[in-house]
């Protein structure tokens, strides 16, 4: 049994179907990437799992229990931390308070202190700016705060929504390096939504491609990386042909 199991999940914004029946699994300790273009339903998927949005149909099981009808705080308490798109740090709180907010359901003061240390270990840049207002931090630092905040809840699963969004290439590498380290250290599972397919597939164990609210391809990261459609549409790898440039795109087949 997988840690997280979605079965035929549908989600709507009013009359508009954003998820049209999504089935996917995240195993304990695994990183699972979800690739997709704008509007494919990636963010909706994460919001539906974390309880920010209620699915219209389908089931979501986490650690064996159905969670699709639970409120967001209840899902968080069950062990799912959501790092939303655009970080959403508490801008007027200090870095320290932001991180502590992540552990607000915890009662073990000693553990919280230890985890704070651990997070500063991952993100040394944050230690120096611990009293700073989070809103004054750079985008990369804010992303670190958001991930650190999620870790403070000691989750079994982290939902990561486009951690690379708006960051410089160097910072993206840094963030992904840390994501890999966190996984190796703590064994926390991650469901990673990304447009940066290369970074996502490098760190992920398996992945799904979401298009128009449907899963069109599923498999190991290796299988996805070698898929012709993923190469052309998500990795931007295409053979340039005899003219040295090629603007047209092949037809997607997803096989």
């Amino acid at each position, binding site marked *: 049994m997988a840690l997280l199991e979605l079965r035929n999940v549908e989600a709507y914004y009013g009359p508009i179907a954003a998820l049209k029946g999504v089935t996917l699994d995240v195993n304990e300790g695994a990183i699972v990437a979800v690739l997709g273009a704008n509007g494919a339903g990636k963010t909706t998927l994460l919001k539906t799992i974390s309880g920010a949005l209620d699915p219209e149909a389908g089931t979501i099981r986490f650690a064996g229990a159905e969670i699709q009808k639970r409120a967001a705080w209840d899902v968080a308490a069950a062990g799912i931390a959501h790092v939303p798109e655009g970080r959403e740090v508490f801008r007027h709180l200090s870095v320290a308070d932001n991180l502590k907010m992540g552990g607000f359901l915890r009662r073990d003061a000693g553990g919280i202190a230890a985890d704070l240390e651990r997070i500063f270990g991952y993100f040394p840049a944050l230690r120096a700016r611990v009293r700073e207002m989070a809103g004054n931090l750079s985008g990369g630092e804010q992303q670190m705060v958001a991930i650190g905040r999620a870790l403070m809840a000691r989750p079994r699963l982290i939902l990561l929504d486009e951690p690379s969004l708006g960051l410089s290439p160097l910072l993206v590498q840094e963030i992904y390096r840390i994501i890999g380290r966190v996984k190796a250290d703590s064994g926390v599972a991650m469901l990673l939504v990304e447009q940066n397919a290369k970074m996502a597939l490098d760190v992920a164990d398996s992945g799904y491609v979401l298009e128009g609210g449907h899963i069109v391809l599923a498999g190991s990261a290796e299988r996805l990386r070698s898929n012709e459609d993923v190469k052309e549409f998500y990795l931007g790898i295409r053979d340039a042909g005899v003219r040295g440039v090629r603007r047209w795109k092949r037809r997607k087949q997803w*096989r």
Partner: protein
Amino acid sequence: MALTDARIPAGCDTVAKLFRHTAAARGERAALMHKDYGVWQATTWRGYAEQARHTGLGLAALGLRPREVAAILAETIPEWLFTDMGIMGAGAVSVGLYPTSSREQVEYIVNDSGARFLFVEDEEQLDKVLERRERMPRLERVVVYDMTGLKRFSDPQVMSYDELLALGRAAAERAPGAWDALVDATRPEDRAILVYTSGTTGPPKGAVLSHANLVFAIDRWGEMAPTHDGDDTLAFLPLCHMAERMMTAMRPLAYGGVVHFAESPETVLENLREVSPTVFFAVPRIWEKLHSLVTMTLQDATPLQRALYNRASAVAHAVADRRMAGKPVPFGLRALYALAELAILRNTKRLLGLSRARLIGSGAAPISQDIMRWYVALGIPIFEIYGQTECSGIATFYRPEEFALGTVGKPLSGTEVRISAEQEIVIRGPHVFQGYLNKPERTAEAIRDGWLHTGDVGAFTPEGRLKIVDRKSDIIITSGGKNITPSEIENKLKFSPYVTDAIVIGDRRNYLTALVMIDQENVTKYAQTNRIPFTDYASLTRAPAIKDLVWAEVEKVNKQLANVERIRKVHLLDILLTAEDEEMTPTLKLRRKFVNEKYKKEIEAMYGG
């Protein structure tokens, strides 16, 4: 060959002359409609003729001589027709390539046909040519219709269509009589077009059709499907396919009407609704799809709507059965039918885009008679055409009002159809082709003693109507010695909204099995409604509940079949095949030989191998 009929004007003994005549007579009337940025744009007959003239003169200026070959590699777009008529007007031979062709296929056909010029739609098609041009030594010039993405590309062998038209325009101004002289020089016995048909064995064969072949076939269209200037048609099949070539390029030359171009192969159903053609020709795949569209729409309807539809459909079928049997329809039933039409049937036809349909044809492949019956019941005047490229696309037909379901009707007047000693359908007449290019031995196999051997097995009904049994090479002989015609069983399977296509297997085997391609849209919907988890297409085909669903559909068909004809096992194909795959024809039918070869392992597994 003298035409006894007045459908073809005097002196128009070639396609080129007929086109010139018709275009001049119709002048400012709309001939073609296509969409530009979402808005329908008309091309008049005068505009059509001008584009064709400039294309033809441009080619002549570049050195294309009569009886030489020029080829077209493009989707179904107006430029295809401009070029086709331009090439034929210049006295040259026009050959079409499927837009889904691979580089290798393009190379083969260009070389086999000896084409000196090749028209390509866009950058994508151009790349196919450039990657292989060293292997096409006789190809001199490539003309590109759509230069998007090629603005800064320059190559001595490549030019834009606009440049070619400018050459032609300049030539027309220099020598105003040049075009007429070229058209006048065309002769009925000259080659007009080459149509490549993919053989199940060996490379594609180029069927040669003369002007006389085509003009005869155009003439006979009038007795089969009388169309006129008020008609709207929709073009969507590849124009290099004989059926679409006749319907869209040739037929209007005698009968007029407005051809609407579908925006793309994916938007056919939307465009159909939008255009609502009065005359429409399509392949069975489309008729099956429209039928399942209604079936699936009903599943989403309220119970009341469903009950009303079922009641209306029952009345309509009762009426249709009487009509087909030639019996009178009692007044009570007629009144009910009028009600059904008002309440249900009219809207169903509107949903399908067939509310104005006057003449609806199916052909190019066998179709399920249950599907035909359903259209007849809806009150849609549907008929079937039988023919092949080698007889200019048409051999037999019946008129909708004949309700000759289960047959493909009677031969065209002035032609003969017989059943040979081997039960093979053989054809003789002015529509029979000239032979295969560069393949005298294949020609000799096809035309024996003056008769075109179709490769189809058939028989005549007592009324003199032809019934097709199957392709001779497809007939299954089980190890028990029973003869079985797979296409009949396959068509029954395709009646299901969940089955797009099927291949029945069982030659020299103990029992029959089938490979099934599911309808992605409808099966996905079923899976979602019934909470059957799946991720991608392959996992959908492997879901046990989906296998059960398809098996239930197979069982429904099995009930209508004799014991030996029953399907014992099925395998669902786990990839969604498209026209670009060799397993599929451009008219979206599975190719038996290719599929059998590719799925050998899966087939053997069904026989315990």
